[in-house]
């Protein structure tokens, strides 16, 4: 039976995160930590005017926060800052393909919180 939380998609993004590794040229950088558990993410973005041209991250933490970061970074490429400002927590659940239990909400939105602070 497939696991509802640790699904194949989530595990695959955990072990093979997309846009992982920080490159040196960037327009904005944000470090963000989950105050509950200490998970840490650093996200760098490059803008082309209003548009997200490139995004990358590095992360130390759990499966959910890393998979969510990988999925979100893929998703926002090419979007406008305004579109990113409109992303809500439920959209992250959509990307993960699961309903996130309340105790793990903070994990799932770690990357989003960092990205929100740059747009």
């Amino acid at each position, binding site marked *: 039976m497939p696991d509802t939380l*640790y699904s194949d998609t989530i595990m*695959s993004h955990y072990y093979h995160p997309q846009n992982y590794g920080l490159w040196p040229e960037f327009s904005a950088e944000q470090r963000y930590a989950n105050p509950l*558990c*200490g998970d840490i993410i650093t996200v760098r973005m490059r803008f082309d005017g209003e548009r997200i041209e490139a995004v990358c991250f590095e992360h*130390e*933490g759990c*499966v959910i926060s890393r998979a969510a970061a990988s999925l979100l970074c893929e998703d926002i490429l090419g979007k406008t800052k305004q579109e990113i400002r409109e992303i809500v927590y439920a959209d992250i659940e959509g990307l993960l393909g699961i309903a996130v*239990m309340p*105790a793990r909400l903070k994990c799932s939105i770690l990357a989003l919180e960092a990205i929100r602070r740059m747009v």
Partner: protein
Amino acid sequence: MNHKSDFPIFDYFQKQGKPLVYLDSAAMTQMPRAVIDAVRSHDEEAHANVHRGIYALSETATAKYEQARETVRAFLNARSANEIIFTRNTTESINLVAYALGKSMLREGDRILISRAEHHSNILPWQMLAEEKGIVLDMVDADEQGKISLAVIERLITPATRLAAFSHVSHVLGTINPVAEMGKLFRERKILFLVDAAQSVGHLPTDVQEIWCDFLVFSGHKMGGPTGIGVLYGREELLAGMPPFLRGGGMIQDVSFDHTEFAVLPAKFEAGTPNVSGAVGLAAAIEYIRKIGFDEIRKIDEEMTTELFSRLGQIKGITIFGPHDAKDRGGVASFTLDGIHPHDLATILDRDNICIRAGHHCAMPLMKYLGVLATTRTSFWVYNTRDDVKQLAEGIEKSRLLLKKKP
């Protein structure tokens, strides 16, 4: 002896078909039926405000509240019930001391000595004094086994050191600190000594005269009592010279618009209506502990710790923090597991109703020192059995399989 049957919550989950494996007693212990019943009968038969009413019901409530204070006094071997202040919890007790000492005895340039392993509750109030009053904080580090040596403490003491604040049992490393030896050292140097007994009062006998401490603080909910009730023990001469923390009803002798004369101890530090049923529940918890006995509790802690070490020792990639010998530890142990984040482990264990704690445990300075972002923590109390530890170990193996890298 199995004490699980004293605690209704285990029966409840058994009947649900989801037996509870509770390994987070350092955060909050479960309550024995004796405590639940004591609180309920107080609420049903003696619920009234204290030190106010002229009627019999209020007198009954007051008597029970003051009886609870006396029970705490005897439990700690304090000299007088005036030395027992009821608060909400450990955190409030330490804030009270920091605030009142900051307003009275402490001056700019005075130094306070704490350890890096302290709970944020025993760091932040002193940090406030550092920021607001120019007091200097000195940090003692534990050695690689989580032990704090008297020699290291002595090296950090300066003539300006006025106060030392240490936990009796570390809530992350599990270390039992030599508080009696520390107390002697500090007393000889006229340094005030605060003991954070949050993780010890429910596990080890506590005698404030033997420790020779000036303040000792703890929370009811970590020793079988209800939430919202905590204790500050303070030496009477010191408390008498300290200004009140909170101001309002119940703590005055005489009030006019330009002057207030404060009540005597302990009322001076108990502004507003206190948690009466909480105090009654705390007293019932103390009675329960006395019935079980510290020898038995100690035996259970050591047995659980030994079982934990032997089971976890067989798991690859485990690092256990703190002392290696169960004799040097209270009922707390933290570990990390290569490749599995504590959060994921906690989530997967939770599916089998196994409750453990994952995170930084309100000890971020210690986490940085250990070089980890988070750990998994298990902690025990009287109801735990070797089977609980076995289920934990099996749960860890299960998590490893589930999170194993797919080809």
